[in-house]
């Protein structure tokens, strides 16, 4: 089940205490696709990590459905991410020595025993849906596009309500990027997952329901509010 997002009074500071991102109000309905753009260093990725509950020096409220992740302790925040959030990174961050299946099913390793098989099965289905070959080869031998699709399968293997992607196409050539954009948005829409993607890639942003611009640590005027 997808989760709606509501961010209020978010104030993200650097370790030295300087405010690097400030979001007064941001709302996103469940299952929406949100693109975040902006110049480098403007605070796009910071927004992504903050709403995932990963930024330690942050204040305010980030509600995913009824849960305010900012109000949770470290362990419960982690558990919330494990249950509800899938993440995709610019440079894939796979275990190069493991196969596509083992990478895609990575999060099963720390889930309860009875859920491991389920996550493993879903990882297999996702990999097939993303047209990745069923092979025991380590992903080190895969192309960039294939690796990022393995990362997408990993992000979706536990059927998360939220998918957060940080520059998912930045390390790919155009053709691979286009294919990934197609697969990513199709899978998010099919499963009703809320997708927030930080990107400079116009092709990706054009497939989003809504695009925000982050500039100088703030959401550009006229773009906040309800989508």
């Amino acid at each position, binding site marked *: 089940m997808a989760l709606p997002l509501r961010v209020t009074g978010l104030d993200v500071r650097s370790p030295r205490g300087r405010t690097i991102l400030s979001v007064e109000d941001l709302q996103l309905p469940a299952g929406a696709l949100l693109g975040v753009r902006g110049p480098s260093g403007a605070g796009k990725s910071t927004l992504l*990590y903050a709403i995932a509950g*990963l930024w330690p020096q942050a204040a305010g409220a980030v509600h995913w459905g009824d849960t305010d992740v900012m109000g949770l302790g470290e*362990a419960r925040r982690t558990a919330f991410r494990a249950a509800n959030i899938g*993440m995709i990174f610019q440079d894939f961050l796979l275990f190069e020595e493991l196969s596509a299946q083992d990478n895609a099913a*990575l999060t099963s*390793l*720390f889930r309860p025993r009875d859920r491991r098989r389920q996550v493993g099965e879903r990882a297999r289905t996702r990999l097939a849906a993303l047209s990745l070959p069923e092979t025991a080869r380590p992903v080190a031998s895969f192309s960039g596009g294939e690796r990022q699709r393995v990362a997408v399968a990993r992000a979706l293997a536990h059927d998360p309500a939220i998918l957060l992607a940080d520059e998912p196409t930045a390390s790919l050539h155009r053709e691979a990027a286009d294919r990934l954009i197609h697969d990513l948005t199709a899978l998010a829409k099919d499963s009703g997952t809320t997708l927030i993607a930080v990107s400079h890639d116009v092709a990706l942003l054009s497939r989003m329901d809504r695009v925000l611009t982050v500039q100088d640590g703030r959401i550009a005027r006229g773009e906040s509010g309800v989508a």
Partner: protein
Amino acid sequence: MRDVWDGLPVLAQDLFISAVLLLPILIVALVLLRGYAPFPLTRAILWRFRWANLLFVLLIAVSVGMGIGLIAQERGLRQGMAQAADKFDLVVSAPGSELTMMLAAVFLQPSDVGLLDGDAYAEIAGHENVDIAAPLAFGDSYGDAPVVGTTAEFVRYLTDDRLEGRMWERSGEAIVGPAVPLGLGDGFVPAHGVGAAAEAGAHAGVEMQVVGRMPRTGTPWDRAILIPVETVWEVHGLANGHAPEAGDRIGPPFDAKYFPGTPAVIVRAEELWANYALRSEFTRDSEMMAFFPGTVLGNLYRIMGDVRQAMSLMSAVTQVLVAASVLLGLFILSRLFQRQVAMLRALGAPLRFVAAVVWLYGATLLTLGAALGVGLGFVASAVLSRIVTVRTDILVNASLGWSEVPLALAFLSATSVLALIPALALLRQPIVANLRA
């Protein structure tokens, strides 16, 4: 409680100690790994840094191997020496250093010592509780082999009557140890003196013939050539222990008047208690002394015991230093996968799971290193044993026993628990900063 413990077989005690030593690892493993499956990730990390890991394992193995190899070697040498002295219940000699005398009589290390005269020998040999009183005569050699004069009775006792060939029947016949490069029927001319100071031509014309060979005993006597004590005296131009009218007679009884003297008499009594009585009876100020080689060795071990403790301490300190460098290495290595750790945390991996992956990685290296170290210790001990055996003729067995296992386990246990530190330190790393690194 103490009685129960003392009543347990040694193996049971060793197993119990090993289990106790393993307990901290088991507890850490149980707490960290319960409910998780970190093995595939640990395997991946082990493979990724395989060369660095191999180096680590070797470092640990060499440290553990050296530690337990040395201790096993020291024990092997001690057992070998005790075994070499086994047949020498009581030694009677002129007063002097018991240690020097023991080294000369039991381990055939040449030294200048005083002599017991014929009356003293007659008194010892004639004592009612003495079964064998064998005079020894040293001073000649053939190559590396010391030539020792004694009696046929003592040779039979020393070899348990298992001679290849036959016992000497006349002066000029010899029995060789198994390590002497002479065969049955070979002849040889002994040199006067031993080692570098030996004079090869001093006994020219005195050719001896090998008639028998002793079985291997694992003692310095394996390299010795035994001849009738009379022969030694004769080739040195002395009386041969018998009155001229006795003719070619060899072996006891000896005539005190024609007895040139012996540095040591090996005494054997059938009854254990008799040895103690003989020792006190033959210990007289300025006349003679009697001692148990086993007791002298025991005293030596007591002194060596301090050395052994110092060795153990040095070995322990070395292992602590290695453990410290291993931990430092684990810190450095774990830095290499801090991005992966940040990714795991971002994906919702609990702290305990991440700690389990990193700790399992360190514990695997330590376990492999300690296991390989035990193997290396065994090999090192076997090689050292061979060298010591060749150089001293004291049979030293590479006996890596259960007593070395707790040493390796203690190292493994302590370092595995310490391996929690780099694992926990990694959890304090900032997630976002490492994801972006």
